[in-house]
């Protein structure tokens, strides 16, 4: 028994990929970027910082945040890139981020800079919560132009939105309603919306995909997903309701205690360059550098104007309270409704 155990260990160590590049330093980056972004990001970073070899650990925002916090006693990441700013604010609060202000951040748009000292994170791009509306399955329900239009009885059981506790997009929408409508009005609106909700999904883009495929009529989801589903030929309208939409941003930071601090700083510098913003703009319409614009086809008009005045630290500080209230109101009624 002992001997097979030993030989197994040998087998395992042989199976584990060895260090391939001697002179390059591996920089482990935790990310929630979309899969298809990882290749181009890696290429661009390695071009700007030739001594770095980027290795990604990618998962959804919730999973990667939970994992980072679970590992906090012995961090495995050198950097975090492309994670919701609200998560980074939580890391900052827990003292897990390195203080570093990358070169060139002062040129970026103001909301994309860490407003507080010590400076730890830098914004990359912003994403909004929009309405995907399937016109082929609407069956007479008019295309909404205001959030209130989603409360009509014809949409009962036909709306899906991301679950705010497990999806950043879900939370940014809830936070957006509460900030624009005020607490009392905001909860009243969600009470009404809840009557029409078929399910709270655990992903920020799935609701729009479901609406696009006709599984549902309305999906509240990420702006970019709406545009791309429409471009693929789905019979949907992507709508920015007139009251404005909540938003969040992706940001990057260096992990405190990294063994590769010097290289990580260079990668952080890259994150604040115009080249990096051009890369961000391939997947997000609204990015940190002021002079970069790359609006994708079928992207809703007036999106940047539709962004509400959003207080990220309000979002971070009130998250637990809002989610508890949300859970009290809507999860106790989470019995099957349809």
């Amino acid at each position, binding site marked *: 028994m002992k001997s097979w155990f030993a030989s197994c260990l040998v087998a395992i160590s042989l199976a584990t990929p060895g260090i391939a590049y001697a002179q390059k330093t591996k920089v482990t980056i935790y990310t929630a970027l979309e899969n298809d972004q990882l290749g181009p990001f890696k290429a661009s970073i390695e071009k700007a910082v030739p001594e770095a070899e980027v290795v990604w650990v990618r998962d959804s925002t919730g999973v990667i945040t939970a994992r980072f916090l679970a590992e906090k006693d012995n961090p495995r990441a050198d950097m975090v890139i492309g994670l919701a700013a609200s998560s980074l604010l939580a890391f900052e609060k827990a003292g897990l981020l390195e203080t570093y202000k990358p070169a060139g951040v002062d040129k970026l748009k103001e909301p994309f800079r860490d407003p507080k000292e010590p400076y730890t994170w830098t914004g990359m791009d912003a994403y909004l919560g929009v309405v995907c509306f399937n016109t082929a399955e609407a069956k007479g329900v008019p295309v909404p132009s205001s959030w209130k239009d989603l409360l009509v009885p014809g949409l009962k059981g036909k709306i899906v939105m991301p679950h705010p506790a*497990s999806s950043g997009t879900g939370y940014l929408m809830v936070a957006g309603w509460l900030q624009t409508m005020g607490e009392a009005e905001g909860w009243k609106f969600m009470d009404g919306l809840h009557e029409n909700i078929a399910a709270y999904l655990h992903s920020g883009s799935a609701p729009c995909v479901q609406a696009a495929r006709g599984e549902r009529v309305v999906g509240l989801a990420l702006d970019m997903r709406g545009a791309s589903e429409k471009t693929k030929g789905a019979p949907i309208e992507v709508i920015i309701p007139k009251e404005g939409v909540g938003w969040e941003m992706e940001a990057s930071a260096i992990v405190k205690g990294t063994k590769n601090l010097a290289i990580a700083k260079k990668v952080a510098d890259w994150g604040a360059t115009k080249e990096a913003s051009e890369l961000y703009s391939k997947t997000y319409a609204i990015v940190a550098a002021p002079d970069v614009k790359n609006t994708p086809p079928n992207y809703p008009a007036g999106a940047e104007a539709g962004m509400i005045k959003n207080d990220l630290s309000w979002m971070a500080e009130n998250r637990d309270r809002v989610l508890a209230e949300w859970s009290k109101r809507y999860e106790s009624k989470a019995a099957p409704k349809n």
Partner: protein
Amino acid sequence: MSDAVQEVPLTGSLVAPRPLRIGERQVGATLVLALCAILVLIIGLPLWALLSKSVENTEGHFVGLANFVTYATTPTLVASLVNSLFVAATTTALVIPLAFAYAYALCRSRIPGKGLFYAAAMVPVFAPSLLSGLALIYVFGNQGLLKSWLMGASLYGPVGVIAAESLYCFPHAMLIMVTALALSDGRLREAAEALGTSRWRIFRTITLPAARYGVISASFVVFTLVITDFGIPKVIGGQFSVLATDAYRQVVGQQNFPMGAVVGIILLVPAVIAFFIDRAAQKRQSAMLSARAVPYSPKPERRRDTVLLILVSLVAFTIVAPYAIAVWGSFVRYWPYNLSLTLNNYDFSTVEPSGWEPYRNSLMLAGLTAIIGTTLIFCGAYLVEKLKAVPHLRAFAHFLAMLPMAVPGLVLGLGYVFFYNAIWNPLGFLYGTLAILVINTIAHFYTVGHITALTSLKQIDSEFEAVSASLKVPFWTTFRRVTAPICMPAILDIAVYVFVNAMTTVSAVIFLYGADTKLASIAIVHMDEAGAVASAAGMATVIMLTAIAVKLLHIALDRLVFGRLQRWRQR
């Protein structure tokens, strides 16, 4: 009985084998101790690492039972608990009779195409559980082919969850029951038949009691599998919340590890109950295959075989059809608006940066897990079941072996992070490597393999050991030359089970995979999250085909090689 024989001192001159002076008991005790140490390391400590969080607050201070009080006073709990119990009970009630009839048809009748039917029932095991969710959405979803069959009910809720869980659990139940029914003493039945006993009476008094242990085990396996599964409720549960999705929401949604741990503890309750019922049932189980047993081979019987064939065909079709549709879906350009076929969805590099790399990682993981895991599981089960030394340690090992089934993968995965990534842990170097994935996967799927091995071992009369002992043959020789060969079918079943689950598992490894060790099953989740449903179905299809290929290899091996070893069973 064998104790008495072992205690006779070796006289040396009579039988003079190699000097085996270190007693068998000591060797046995050492091995059991080693087994316990391994199980504590791969199951006990990681669980403890997480569960100890349940009495801490999020800052890590000790708060006693405050988290449990908070949880119990949250209205969600009762709803989720009731939902979980309802779904688990319904699925068990649905699956167990069907799986028993199915296994009965495979073992005790002369229907044609048994290998095919066996394979058909195993299809859900071959596919990642996400695929069963996707498959049901393709068939019964709001844009599904057979939506009207639900008569207005929605798939997204208990209906979908029960349907998908039944698909997912059926092979697990069947595997255990086939093992229970496969070995039987033909002499009893022949005697009964010669005495003119009615078939119903034979079934009631011989077949059922013999398979009782399998039925009980299978019921608990199904019940706990359903209660702890979070993949299916997550995909098609809609608003129907269950305990496992609560744990997921607490941990992944709110980074509330203490609350996640509380739910984890609640989920452990069924396993602990299962453990004690199992012990009770075991006391009343006698060995079915005595040293003088003659294997039973069924004779053709038209009426019984026709009825069983119809039943088995229906069940097999119900299982296979949704998956076939999902496979078709993976070739469709844009469901449901553009149904033209394409291979584009299989070019994974468009939606997954490492392309086919995760698939190779999964193969490596599954291969290593099958080899190492099966060896550990079967040897472990042998030590627990057949040794007489250190009964308390063996019971402890058995308890640890029964635990993982009740632990949601998510809870186990987090436990691994907390335990293996702790600064003080000398095993920390394993973290982030393929090794930790292998260890974790073995732990995660330990229980069903353990039960399968036990079920198979229990049916071998302990007289084999007694006779060996009286011949002064040490137990490891008996193990190598008698027990392991007899159990070879069960060992292979375990290996295939572990391999396939390693290919398809998501929940535990999602916290553990490293930059170089992303797995195919995780890639599926990522593709599904990104909305690339067809590619997700495509990768799932590739996994399924791989697993089926392994199964076919298994069958071929069974026929060619072990057919010879098992020939003694036929007359």
